[in-house]
């Protein structure tokens, strides 16, 4: 075990070096959540240009295909698991687990309301994706992680997600066009037994990302706009969310049929996912009917300014009722 000082020094060095695009240290690494035994892996996604969308799709919102250039970022190889998310969810649990003080800034962060329902939906926790969080909750998880590590983790934009998911391919799936092969790579309705499954137990995509299709839908940052591809920027497009519904989620889940899935399929959040919330105002943190919804983190190689980071993490949630 390294002591706290050394650990923060190491992180500081990584951050300084990361300002250089061509840095030779733009490599895979393992992030340890400070004070705990919880770790997760990230891989570098190099800068590149790809064709986003699908002109042959029956879904109009995937058209037109357009070229997009994406700046480099790291992406987590796995969806965020309950092992990590529950530390954020419950401060007392974090305090109980932590081997060192969590610090005033982490201590002062707003945490999710503890849900009145079993938000694992009976599907289990260990090694399984955290589910049911709102986009606000997903971003606040990134905020918590930032306060603990000093590293700007965030949600992928929709374009970043599709770029990484395709991993250089231009077929329906990263492995080709045949949905019958999907079950080698993904937990979908045909093989999941209606439950999330442990992350990383199927084959990864060519860049090393597991569960890109299936297991859980993954939050992106973008507002859902079916017309967005007709007008989006060509460089690092994003559609900042201003309305609560809908926002883009990608990749399908354990509840998605293979027929429905592709690298370009755009899913979106729905107020129906909060239908059975018995309280008013409805929870800013939880979707009690979205056991299929999770998140995956990214980290831009060149982080934005401290002011921009602050803005990203402190956007107020929109009251939902």
């Amino acid at each position, binding site marked *: 075990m390294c002591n706290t000082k050394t650990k923060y020094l190491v992180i500081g060095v990584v951050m300084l070096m990361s300002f250089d695009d061509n840095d030779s240290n733009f490599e895979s690494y393992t992030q340890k959540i400070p004070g705990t035994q919880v770790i997760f892996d990230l891989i570098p996604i190099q800068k590149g240009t790809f064709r986003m969308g699908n002109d042959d799709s029956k879904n109009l919102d995937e058209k037109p295909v357009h070229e997009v250039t994406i700046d480099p970022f790291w992406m987590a190889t796995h969806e965020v698991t309950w092992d990590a998310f529950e530390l954020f969810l419950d401060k*007392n649990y974090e305090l109980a687990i932590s081997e060192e003080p969590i610090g005033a800034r982490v201590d002062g962060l707003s945490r999710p309301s503890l849900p009145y*329902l079993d938000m694992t939906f*009976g599907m289990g926790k260990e090694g399984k994706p955290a589910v049911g969080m709102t986009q606000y909750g997903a971003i606040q998880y990134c905020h918590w992680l930032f306060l603990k590590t000093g590293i700007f983790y965030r949600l992928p934009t929709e374009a970043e997600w599709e770029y990484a998911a395709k991993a250089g391919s231009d077929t329906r799936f990263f492995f080709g066009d045949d949905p019958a092969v999907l079950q080698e790579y993904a937990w979908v309705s045909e093989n999941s037994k209606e439950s999330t499954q442990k992350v990383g137990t199927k084959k990864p995509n060519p860049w090393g990302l597991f569960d890109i299709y299936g297991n859980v839908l993954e939050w992106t940052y973008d507002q859902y706009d079916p017309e967005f591809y007709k007008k989006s920027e060509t460089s690092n497009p994003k559609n900042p969310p201003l309305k609560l519904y809908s926002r883009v989620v990608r990749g399908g889940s354990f509840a998605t049929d293979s027929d429905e899935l592709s690298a370009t399929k755009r899913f979106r959040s729905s107020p129906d996912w909060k239908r*059975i919330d*018995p*309280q*008013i105002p409805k929870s800013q943190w939880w979707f009690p009917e979205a056991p299929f919804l999770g998140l995956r983190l990214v980290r831009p190689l060149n982080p934005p300014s401290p002011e921009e980071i602050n803005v990203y993490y402190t956007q107020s949630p929109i009251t939902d009722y």
Partner: protein
Amino acid sequence: MTGGVLASPFILPGAYAAPANELKLAVIGCGGRGTGAVFQAMETGHPIKLVAMADAFRDRLDSSHKLILDKYGASKVAVDDDMKLTGFEGYKAAIAAADVVILATPPGFRPMHFEEAVKQGKQIFMEKPVATDAAGIRRVLKAAEEAKAKKLNVVVGLQRHYQNNYRETIKRIHDGAIGDITGGQVYWNDGGVWVKERKPGQTEMEYQMRNWYYFNWLCGDHITEQHVHNIDVANWVKQGYPVKAEGTGGRQVRTSKENGEIFDHHIVSFTYADGSVIHSECRHFPGAANRVDESFQGTKGKVYMSGGNHGVLTDWKGNALYNHPRDNQPNPYQQEHDELWAVLMKGEYKFADAENAAKSTMTSIMGRYATYSGKPLTWDEAMNGSVDLFPDKLDWDALPKLLPNSDGYYPHAVPGKTKVI
């Protein structure tokens, strides 16, 4: 029945006239759940006007009022300033102003509010649980009898009774699909709920009221406040109430000052009149596995049910006898109000949920008595328990019966020592 001027749409004793126009609604307890219940009432689409709101705290009342007004507008929400009632006594005037009342304060107040609503002859939706000790249960049972005599509809928010997977599956159990029920297991294991920290200037009474989950006179402990849902399913399946409880429990991981006096786990065996035993388990351990569901075993098969719309009957050879569809099921919290208000609009009498709700709440309280004392006890011993948790006087400066020690921590039950009845 025509020609008379009806001061109240429910003026006719024993046989209601259908309401002449809109029904007036009051909400007592304006937290998230009370506000939610008002929304669900409004969402039924019937002509309803909210006319009175009562809450101990003005801030909770105001935030609730704003949400309801923003959503439904002045045509549905007409709460004059003098009908925004705060403190401990406001409930009486709020109930008087309405035809229908929603009772959604912390459960410790429910017996008092339910008694008053029945006394005033109102139609009632009230949240679970309906009391926090045997003294409260006895009051609710007495008022429940009076409500029946007056033909007042009473719906209680044990919403599994309004959820199709439970209704369909338990109907089949009662029809004999898996034979006689010989045992079962019911669970509410999760990470726990919110905590409110003490703020400067709060009296002890205000602090306990704000952080009510952790004080038994208000909450009843989580075996009552949450796990009553699953225990109630056991009683529903068994078509009766246990004759005996024995159990164990304690405070393992939730031990701060803010955690008041309640335990973080209770494990109870409930024995029913036919000798069958139901295992009940509720636990607030963050990080540990979650489980919230109900299983039972019968002479011919077994059943699994959950709030996530599971309802699965299987015989002992593994053959599926029934598997309730899980997709596109109605929202049970909405269903409660859809069914209640449809009956109210017709001026009919149909719902008498209070007695079962009181007895299922009593079952959970009996479980708590068993874990707190570390001693088995019978239904009658529990029901006749003389310990009354309610404060002698309700006032912001009055003292609740449980007070913190000099170090700020609260005394809590110690099995083997604590007297519960």
